[in-house]
C-alpha cells in the first residue's frame, strides 16, 4: 500500500516532479491540486510559528486508502495522490498535497473537494500549533458546512 504520510514539509520540487510524471499520460486533460500551507495565525496575540503533526499512522494510512478507493469509484479519475506531513512544519511550509487528474475538469474539481473534506474530517492526524513564546495549542478542524 502506497504511503501518504511523510516526515516534514512537502517541497515545491516534489510537487513539480509529481506533475512531470503525469506528462506521458496523454488521456489526462485536467489536473487539480490542493495544497495546505501552515498559517501564522495569531492566537491570544501570539503568532503560530509551526505545527507539529502526529498521527495514528497505521489507522491514518488505512483511512486514506479507503478514501482513495471510494473517490476512484465515485469520480472518473486517471490518477490520485495524497501526501500529508508528519513532524514539524514551519509557517509558510506545505503540509498537505492532494493531486487528482482526469480527462475533464469537472471530475477533477469535484474529486478534490471530496478528498480534502474527507481527509480533514476522517484521518486521525493531530496538530500542535507552536506559538512564538514556546507555548502551544491543539489545532482542531472545522467543517466547511
Amino acid at each position: 500500500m502506497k504511503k501518504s504520510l511523510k516526515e516534514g514539509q512537502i517541497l515545491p520540487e516534489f510537487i513539480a516532479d509529481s506533475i512531470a510524471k503525469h506528462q506521458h499520460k496523454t488521456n489526462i486533460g485536467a489536473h487539480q491540486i490542493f495544497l495546505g500551507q501552515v498559517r501564522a495565525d495569531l492566537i491570544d496575540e501570539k503568532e503560530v510559528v509551526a505545527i507539529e503533526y502526529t498521527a495514528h499512522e497505521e489507522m491514518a494510512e488505512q483511512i486514506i486508502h479507503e478514501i482513495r478507493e471510494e473517490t476512484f469509484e465515485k469520480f472518473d479519475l486517471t490518477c490520485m495522490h495524497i501526501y500529508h506531513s508528519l513532524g514539524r512544519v514551519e509557517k509558510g511550509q506545505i503540509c498537505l498535497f492532494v493531486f487528482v487528474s482526469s480527462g475533464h475538469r469537472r471530475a477533477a474539481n469535484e474529486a478534490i473537494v471530496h478528498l480534502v473534506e474527507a481527509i480533514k474530517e476522517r484521518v486521525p492526524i493531530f496538530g500542535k500549533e507552536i506559538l512564538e513564546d514556546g507555548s502551544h495549542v491543539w489545532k482542531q478542524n472545522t467543517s466547511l458546512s
Partner: protein
Amino acid sequence: MDHKINIVYFGQIAEGTGKQSEMIEAKELHNKSVREFLNQQYPGIDQYAFTIAVDNKISEICDPENTREIAVLPPFAGG
C-alpha cells in the same frame, strides 16, 4: 486467559494522561464501556472531546477478549 489490550493516546489526550500508550487486562473492560473505563482511570478526561477507535475502526464498543488495540483520538487536525 490473560488477554491484554494496548490503549494508545494521541495529542491533547496523551498530554492529559501523561502517556502515549499502556497495556491493560481485557477483564478491566468487562461490563464497562471504554468511555467509562477511561473516566475512571483519568477523572476529568470527559471534559476533552475524543473519539475511540477499536482496532483501527471508530467505535464506542469493543469485545475485550478480541480487541488488540484501543485508540483514544482527540479532534482531527489534518490539512
